[in-house]
């Protein structure tokens, strides 16, 4: 677990979510969800498949609108204005049909920064400097995800969402991504990480939000959650049992 970082994301926190509901296709996928995030550092969102983890981070990032309930980033609500200071890495990275460098440069220019040094720094951090001129889509899965993370960090976000960024990646790429996440957190970026990987959660989390059937079952500090989960569902999940 990491030390509490500098409060760089103070402009975005606290996050207050109340009575959040999202329904689709006749099913309630997020059900009266309440959540408060006040601490900086890394919040890990865990839960069984279909619990609503990915949906929750998309709602928090303002990519989709809930049917009811509220999401409030430090009194500013939730929408494009809050998204401007946030970034997201998706489970399946969507890379532009350009070179590796051009993918990062696209975001830098979007933010009004045309800085070759910053570009090279981000690529070096992702171990991709040697492949700067290669087509992004020709990279391996791990390299693509590292590039997606470098691109997200290029926007210099206060809050970074990661939706299972290391799913199906090799250990080396996973380590590179975890290091980048930890470094970003160390710079004060608030991290909200969705993961299935309990080992990864133990390595990175400051606090854990456990979701089941579209609601927060448990929100606790990482040490407490892993040593003594309060809910039966979380205990079963951590024990590797099927949680239905």
């Amino acid at each position, binding site marked *: 677990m990491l030390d509490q970082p500098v409060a760089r994301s103070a402009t975005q926190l606290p996050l207050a979510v109340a009575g959040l509901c999202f329904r689709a296709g006749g099913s309630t996928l997020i059900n009266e969800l309440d959540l408060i995030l006040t601490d900086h550092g890394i919040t890990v969102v865990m839960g069984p498949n279909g619990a609503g983890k990915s949906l929750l981070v998309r709602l928090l990032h303002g*990519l989709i609108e809930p049917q009811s309930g509220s999401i409030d980033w430090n009194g500013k609500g939730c929408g494009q204005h809050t998204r*401007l200071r946030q*970034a997201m890495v*998706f489970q399946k990275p*969507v890379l532009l*049909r*350009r070179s590796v460098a051009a993918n990062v440069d696209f975001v830098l220019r979007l933010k009004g920064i045309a800085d070759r040094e910053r570009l090279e720094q981000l690529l070096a951090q992702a171990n991709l400097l040697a492949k700067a001129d290669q087509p992004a889509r020709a990279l391996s899965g791990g390299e693509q995800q590292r590039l997606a993370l470098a691109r997200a960090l290029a926007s210099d976000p206060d809050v970074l969402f990661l939706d299972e960024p290391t799913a199906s990646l090799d250990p080396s790429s996973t380590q590179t991504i975890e290091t980048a996440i930890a470094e970003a957190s160390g710079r004060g970026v608030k991290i909200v990480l969705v993961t299935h990987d309990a080992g990864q959660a133990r390595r990175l989390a400051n606090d854990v939000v456990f979701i089941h059937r579209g609601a927060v079952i448990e929100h606790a500090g990482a040490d407490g959650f892993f040593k003594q989960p309060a809910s039966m569902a979380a205990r079963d999940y951590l024990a590797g049992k099927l949680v239905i």
Partner: protein
Amino acid sequence: MQDFAEAFRLAFGLVAAMDANLVEIIGLSLRVSLTAVLVAAVLGMPLGALLATVRFPGRRAVVIVVNALMGLPPVVVGLLVYMALSNAGPLGFLQFLYTPAAMIIAQSILITPIVAALTRQIIEEMNFEYAEQFASLSVPWHTRIIALISDARYALLTVLLAGFGRAIAEVGAVIIVGGNIAHLTRVMTTAIALETSKGDLALALALGIVLLVIALLVNAAVMSLRAGAERRAHA
């Protein structure tokens, strides 16, 4: 059969000798059709990209109309442009009738819907793929359109190729608005029609061969460019 072989022999002779008349007709054909493609690209690509990325009331109806206009009959376009550019028409003051400008206008009207409709289809698919990432990055709509067109550039080359193919092979509209005037508005297709009716099969065949070769060369160039891009995983 002998006449046919003789026509071929004469045709290859004209091509090999770079006959001045032949070169002039080919030059004008390329100038008119390439300019029309340029106009269609400038108008049709942004229109297609807008239709692919922006939601507005009536968008579906506009898409249907643009798709339907891909099948515009050239003679109808020729007639409408003729009426618009004739002295009694609203654009008569331009004095464009029976000039290459009129032919460019007619061909542009014919191929702009093709470029717009095919661009919409390509950009819409790519936009669907990029949408969530662009939303996450809060990419403004104009930057989004430029990025989509830029990333789809190799696929869009094929769209321009389709437009060029329609323009260079078109005869109905250009013969109405151009008049097929020698040394002024005579292009390959209108010349082929005229020379065939006069019985000068050699020149008609020579022009036909050149038309086919141009179509083959342009296709080959675009396909190899696109294949190269796909090999580099850009497409």
